[in-house]
């Protein structure tokens, strides 16, 4: 049996928050993330993800909140997409937005920004 992991090594995980893009059907259905911004920081851009979900680490929240902007384009048709913020250490979740069916080439975006309380 391995030794317990010291708390000093787990400290980063306790505060870790992630933005998760999920879509359905999601197996072998590529999606291009044109960009995801969080509190004026670019989280990712022009990235292809072939299977749902796509997970990216977020910076520390500002005033306990995240403001997200994004543009996402499926490479094949999907029946729905959602964007959520997760805190894995507690399992808490903040729903950012969701959309219905999107065809290849459609753009799902919000450049004004959706604000959620950091989970």
């Amino acid at each position: 049996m391995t030794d317990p992991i010291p708390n000093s090594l787990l400290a980063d995980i306790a505060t870790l928050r992630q933005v998760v893009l999920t879509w359905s059907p999601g197996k072998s259905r590529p999606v291009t993330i044109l960009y995801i911004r969080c509190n004026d920081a670019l989280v990712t851009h022009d990235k292809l993800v072939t299977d749902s979900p796509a997970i990216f680490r977020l910076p520390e929240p500002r005033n306990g909140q995240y403001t997200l902007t994004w543009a996402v384009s499926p490479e094949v048709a999907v029946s729905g997409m959602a964007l959520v913020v997760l805190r894995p250490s507690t399992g808490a979740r903040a729903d950012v937005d969701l959309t219905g069916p999107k065809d290849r080439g459609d753009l799902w975006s919000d450049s004004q920004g959706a604000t959620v309380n950091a989970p």
Partner: protein
Amino acid sequence: MLPDERSIAVLLAAVLLAASPAAAAEPAGGAAAAGPVQRTDAASPAFPAPVIGVDELIAGTSVAFLSAAITTKSSGTEFRVSSVPLAAFDAGYVPVVSEAALVVSTDTSSSLTRLAASFPYNPFSFRTRRAARIIERSNEAFQCGKRFDDATRACKHTCAAFGAGANADQAKALQETCISQCQRSAERELNACNTRRFASEWRAMNDSWIPAASVSASADFYPYGTAASPPAPATPAHLEWWGGMTFQASFTFRKVERWQTDLWGSFRPQWRSSGAAGSAMARYAGGGASVSYLAWSFLDRDHLERHPDYAKTGVLPGAALGASLQGSWCLTDDSRCADGRTRQVSLTPYLDVRITSQLQVRLGVPISWYHSVAKDGAEAAPTLSIASTVAPP
């Protein structure tokens, strides 16, 4: 039970109607419906009906989730529905299996109903690793998201200088107006960039020496029942309901986007061309080759953002010219061959008008030559096909 021709006609009409651009704009079940995806996942949906001739392709070249075609010939009308059922399920992509297609067709000229299954290897699918490499290259080249991010930063930087000399409220209002207009312009550019990026992927996908390969099998059925026997009209004879099997292998090449070449060979171990009482089965071999070229494209390559349908479907709108050469040989005793014809060759020049993926029209004139026990001959008859696919197209 054999499908009634009238009910299939109604089904086709419904499919064609459902696939119209107006219907496609509003997905069934409302925008939030999370049902199965009823759209194409794969490559450019080509014309879903094969070129008519003496040895046609069984499954056509469409890879859409659902496609339908009506072909009007001098002798009757053929209805065809093709589907890739696994496209509707959330499962990983497995080459060949994921694109297995089922085809049902019925022909009023011969009362033939055909059920077919086709198993294609499709290198043009957007769910393959090859496609992922192409998309990644395209993302890297266009950098639409990065450009948008740079543009919005520049907007904020530029607009921050607005309102110098004005009071704080006026300056704030001016800056907000400036940022808002600048942002809208950046969003338009993001949309245009993204459409151009998608369009570029089609060219890269279709530009390959790797052919799509397919094996297909079909079972043919004629009406079941009895009819007056010509030699003895007073004595009803059983109709021949079983038409036999056809096995086919085909290759589709698209080295250049505007060209498409199909090659195929088929074998019918025991097959009959008619369901009439007493019609005999015979062994046939055949094959064909089709070449089409998009001679006149409606697409403006310099402004691909104006063609969102192309970005979505890969269908190059325009007029394509094509020709299909087909041959069929009867390999058994001459007396068993259909109409006594031991070999037939056909050449079908055709014109495809591709308006959108939902509406394509084909005009063809098959000219066939045959050698029979009694005589040699030739015949020609114009045909018209109207085809549609359910796609995001």
